[in-house]
């Protein structure tokens, strides 16, 4: 295996790694990306199989602990009410993400100033707006302009159909006088730049065999590889190397497909392994200079882990909702309760997301992310015949505030197949989040009834969905102050000048929207900053 030094080494071939590489292409530097997983062809996605739903519970589970593939690392979530989910491979978790594409909102970047909680970001919406637009063009985003919940922006493609389910719920929101809008989605509503439009298969989590979903495997990577970026798969990084004399990163050690440990040297190292994978590698990179992990003089690496805790309410309607037809997570989105309202007993807010319902097996097993099967026997017959076809649901997606005790550490025992310590998640819901979930559940009930639901289904307890750790944020947060942040305002580690982070771990707050649009916009922004500072990058 060739290990000649490169100019830029990116660790991780997912959403953020691909985007930052695209941004840097024009510098004509020598690029290498190390990815622990494999390439997967759209021909290998399980939605082409007759028994496609089974894959959700085996090789295509969103949960790496269920998949247990060689390229996956186990995650110890025993001390968490939410377990992280992901995909390890070219495209990262955009392989199995659901492509809901809302932007963060202006207030999300200013929570300390506006609401007295958490910290303001070093960047704001206006600074990121051109990068949102740039990324939307690269990915192919469908939606409807003019959403009064955002500063105005236009999208290239019209919205995907919201369907009978979306129309029904929209009428309910209108009756309540509440905000809603067709979802922005990284899914093609029309054939676009050589890619096929969505065929409404409803299995976005099983890969998109149509190529309509804007995963990095379909968008950025074909461009990057055509431009000469080297992508090495089955290469798992175990440690970031730092020179004691200069304090600069010199490269990484990684396990290659040959089973051996290799050293890869680079002028610039960019971490793009998501909000669990990146702190894991930083914490595992201990040296005399960094006894608590590289770039961790602040002690903040791994802390402030944020998810988006979820709960849901479903309504049973009189007519079939055909919820299995169309993209899984995206129909309409209400942000009526997104901004802080002093009359409520919590700060910040949440969104009400209308996903579609799912296929019969997944429903019978309790729904996506839940795995709590419906009853057997006569009750089963009744639920599948008289409930399942008539369902339309709302998911309450709450903003998670950063709390230092919610964190990623290294498990003292558990390792991956190369012997690298596995991440351990310590996470509990904040009181603010619990109040938000309760409020959201009640509002979801109201709007479903207003939409015509004849019956409501919800969990009586206050548990959140277990396999809901899609959005992993905050564990290497941005900030101006090296004492309480890991990277500066453009993604560069305070402690190591040529080490950058571009994934969700640099989020300061979480917002209450799916983060991939913001992750990629941030990666493009960091790339732009690197280019702007290329002549004095290490000063």
């Amino acid at each position, binding site marked *: 295996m060739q290990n000649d030094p490169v100019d830029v080494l990116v660790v991780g071939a997912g959403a953020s790694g691909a985007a930052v590489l695209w941004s840097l292409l024009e510098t004509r530097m020598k690029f290498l990306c190390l990815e622990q997983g494999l390439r997967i062809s759209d021909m290998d996605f399980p*939605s*082409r199989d*007759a*028994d496609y739903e089974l894959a959700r519970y085996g090789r295509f589970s969103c949960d790496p602990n269920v998949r247990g593939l060689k390229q996956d690392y186990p995650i110890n979530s025993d001390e968490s009410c939410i377990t992280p989910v992901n995909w390890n491979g070219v495209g990262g978790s955009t392989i199995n993400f659901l492509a809901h594409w809302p932007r963060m909102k202006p207030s999300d970047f200013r929570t300390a100033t506006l609401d007295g909680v958490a910290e303001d970001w070093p960047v704001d919406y206006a600074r990121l707006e051109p990068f949102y637009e740039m990324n939307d063009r690269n990915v192919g985003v469908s939606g409807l302009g003019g959403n*009064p919940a955002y500063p105005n922006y236009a999208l290239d493609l019209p919205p995907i159909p919201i369907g009978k389910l979306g129309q029904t719920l929209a009428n309910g929101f209108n009756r309540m006088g509440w905000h809603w*809008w*067709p979802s922005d989605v990284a899914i093609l509503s029309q054939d676009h730049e050589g890619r096929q439009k969505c065929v409404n*298969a409803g299995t976005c989590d099983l890969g998109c065999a149509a190529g309509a979903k804007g995963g990095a495997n379909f968008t950025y990577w074909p461009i990057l590889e055509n431009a000469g970026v080297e992508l090495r798969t089955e290469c798992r990084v175990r440690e970031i190397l730092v020179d004691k004399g200069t304090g600069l990163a010199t490269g990484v050690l990684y396990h290659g497909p040959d089973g051996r440990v290799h050293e890869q040297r680079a002028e610039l190292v960019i971490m793009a392994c998501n909000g669990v994978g990146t702190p894991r590698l930083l914490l595992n990179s201990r040296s005399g200079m960094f006894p608590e992990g590289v770039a961790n003089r602040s002690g903040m690496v791994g802390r402030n882990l944020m998810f988006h805790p979820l709960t849901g309410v479903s309504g049973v309607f009189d007519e079939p909702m055909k919820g299995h037809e*169309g993209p899984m997570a995206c129909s309409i989105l209400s942000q009526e309760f997104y901004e802080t309202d002093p009359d409520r007993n919590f700060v910040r807010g949440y969104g009400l997301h209308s996903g579609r319902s799912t296929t019969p097996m997944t429903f019978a097993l309790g729904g996506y992310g839940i795995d709590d099967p419906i009853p057997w026997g006569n009750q089963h017959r009744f639920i599948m015949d008289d409930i399942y076809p008539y369902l339309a649901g709302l998911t309450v997606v709450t903003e998670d505030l950063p709390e230092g005790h919610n964190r990623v550490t290294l498990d003292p025992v558990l390792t991956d197949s190369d012997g690298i310590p596995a991440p351990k998640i310590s996470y509990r819901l904040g009181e603010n989040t619990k109040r938000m979930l309760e409020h959201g559940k009640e509002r979801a009930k109201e709007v479903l009834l207003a939409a015509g639901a004849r019956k409501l289904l919800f969990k009586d307890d206050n548990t959140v969905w277990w396999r809901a750790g899609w959005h992993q944020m905050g564990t290497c947060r941005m900030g101006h102050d090296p004492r309480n942040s890991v990277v500066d305002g453009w993604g560069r580690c305070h402690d190591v000048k040529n080490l950058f982070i571009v994934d969700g771990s640099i989020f300061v707050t979480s917002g209450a929207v799916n983060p991939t649009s913001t992750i990629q916009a941030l990666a493009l922004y960091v790339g732009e900053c690197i280019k702007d500072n290329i002549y004095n990058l290490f000063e």
Partner: protein
Amino acid sequence: MWSEAELRVLSSILDELIPASPDGRVPGAGAVVAAEFFRSAAQYAVDPVGAIDVVLAGVSAMTEDFSALDRPERIEILKVVETETPENFALLVRLAYMGYYSRPEIRPLFGPGAQPVHPRGYTVPDESSELIDRLTKPVRQRGRCYRT
């Protein structure tokens, strides 16, 4: 692995877990889920065959011929077994659902097509711009709803 008699009992158990619809439109799981599915289910559970063995043993300890019982009696027995060995019973339920609803002939009875969803997918008509305009009009009329 399983004798003919055990397979008959397993089939009857499956018919109680997912019963047929009274009009016969939807078949019970006993007629749909083959024993082979459980034998190949190690990718979904640690020891599926062992769990089913435990459930079968629990049933046979309570009756010599489960299949000959009427439905209320079968259900009573299954509830007892479920209480006595909840983890094994839960795994059988879970695998029964997986084996049943993964069958292409079953899906259309609940809406989705029998075929793999790719490449054909489903036809969902685009809403007209007039419909979307009408639906979003009240939202637009209320005006801006974000802070800076």
